[in-house]
């Protein structure tokens, strides 16, 4: 079974998000998502300074099987994107919740973060998907 840390929030489309101490939100893809995609060969993270909307496709991860859009769970400005993924997309496979983070956004409305699934609800969604 895939790893679903209890302290993160999730989208059904398999993004995770963590609220940082400075009020920003770090975003990546879940362990389940990286397993389903297989070995990543390319990650395109958004440019710093870009404004993204909740539900907007703003990054792309590509494996030998498929290319998938990554949706932002919150509206706000991108304040950082993980430059290490340019040369080492495999970080998303080896450490999806750590070194494999994709972008950090300063949310305009924190309620959007709170509205995301908690670990339990995401696990239930995964169970329904793979029954």
């Amino acid at each position, binding site marked *: 079974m895939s790893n679903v840390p209890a302290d993160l929030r999730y989208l059904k489309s398999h993004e995770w998000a963590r609220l940082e101490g400075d009020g920003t939100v770090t975003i990546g893809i879940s362990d389940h998502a990286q397993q*389903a995609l297989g*070995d990543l*060969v*390319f990650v395109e993270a958004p440019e710093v300074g870009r404004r993204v909307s909740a539900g907007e496709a703003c990054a792309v991860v590509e494996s*030998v*099987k*498929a290319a*998938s859009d990554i949706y932002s769970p919150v509206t706000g400005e991108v304040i950082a994107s993980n430059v290490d993924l340019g040369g080492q997309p495999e970080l998303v496979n080896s450490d999806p919740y750590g070194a494999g983070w994709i972008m950090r956004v300063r949310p305009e409305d924190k309620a959007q973060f709170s509205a995301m699934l908690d670990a339990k609800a995401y696990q239930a969604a995964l169970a329904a998907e*793979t029954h």
Partner: protein
Amino acid sequence: MHEKLIFEHAAPGRSADAQYPRVPVEATVPTSLLRATPPLLPEVSELQAVRHYTRLSQLNFSIDTHFYPLGSCTMKYNPKACNQYAMLPELLGRHPLAPESTGQGVLQILFELQEMLKEVTGMRGVSLTPMAGAQGEFAGVAMIRAYHRARNDLARTEIIVPDAAHGTNPATATMCGCTVREIPTQSNGDIDLEALKGVVGPHTAGIMLTNPSTIGVFERRIREVAEIVHGAGGLLYYDGANLNAILGKVRPGDMGFDVIHMNLHKTFSTPHGGGGPGSGAVGVSERLLPFLPVPIVGRDGERFRWLDQQDLPQTIGRLSNFMGNTGVLLRAYVYMRMLGRDGMQRVSEFATLNANYLMARLQAAGFEVAYPERRASHEFIVTLRREAREWETNAMDFAKRLLDYGFHAPTTYFPLLVPECLLIEPTETEPKEELDAFVDAMIAIRKEAETEPAKLQGAPWTLPVRRLDDVRAAKQLDLTWKPATA
């Protein structure tokens, strides 16, 4: 049976003099244009070259040698008669820029092909010039944009794409400068009409649909889809990827589509695989006629002539030099003339029958089908999620093991909606015995998955190369061979 590179057969100074140009190159090319260093060519004898390429040709997985159920690609048999007639010297010898007066025969063939494609798709006009499916798609969306621009309706920049559409559709919309709006598919395989109603509006340029869709089922509420999109001012684009399923039975024009591209290399049996060339002819409804790509063959009384920009001032323009892949168009023409109207109906009947027979037999053998409550169109999806979970043998392992059994693998991991999937399209040209042999192989492989999963995980075992490291291949692109010493 490993075949070395041709450079590895080489020895210094060896050559095949019989193949040299009669006149020395230095005598015909100005000195300033001559290479300072000779090109890097393999130094082999004529016999070595012949053996090398003959052996390579024997390693091919091709329709002429293997069952090739590559879903969504319609790898049907290409009748030899199509090649034979397309290679008549009168056709082979014609220059594309020769005057119309000396080429009335070819022009008549292309005109009749346009007419037959109009009839079979229910469209009002056809242009044969797109050189491949991707270019046909590009032409289609470019025409949709040109239509809105001509009406000064400049806000229409969004293309709606259901998640069960052909994978190239979002790419095409993006290439044409549009924004893609994805809408979900319901669990029964049909489009979610409520979601569609939610995204259409004054920004909608159109919707791109594949019907039957990439999950191998017919979109039953296509008329309602057309009403919703047309009602919002958008146009309907038909991706012809799966036209084989409905050939001669239902026409995209009658369903309400405004533009269609046809892959002549799928439905109309021209050779494909290995890079083409293909042909992506486009058909349009009345309102898109002025925007068709040129040239098109027109008829003035008894004479045929090329229609160009002066005839269609609003055309989206030319897509290539010359007039499309004429050699491919000729093969499609012969194919259609050989089949006739009744024959084309039998194509879709047998394509559908073969797919449903194969689906039923695999289901009976214990395989899980993705949309079991729906009748398959010309293709269907098997999901191997149970096999992946219980025995750690995934769809890729099954696909690779099929190669050892002498079958080309089905499409894997597409569409993305279904986990661990094989998309299987047998086409109408396979006999029942071949379908049964494929089922037997799938059953045998499933047994191996349960008892000796390593046999799948390490496959293929019998081919010239074993399992390739596709991750490394994608990361370290190395496309040019160089000698180790150079």
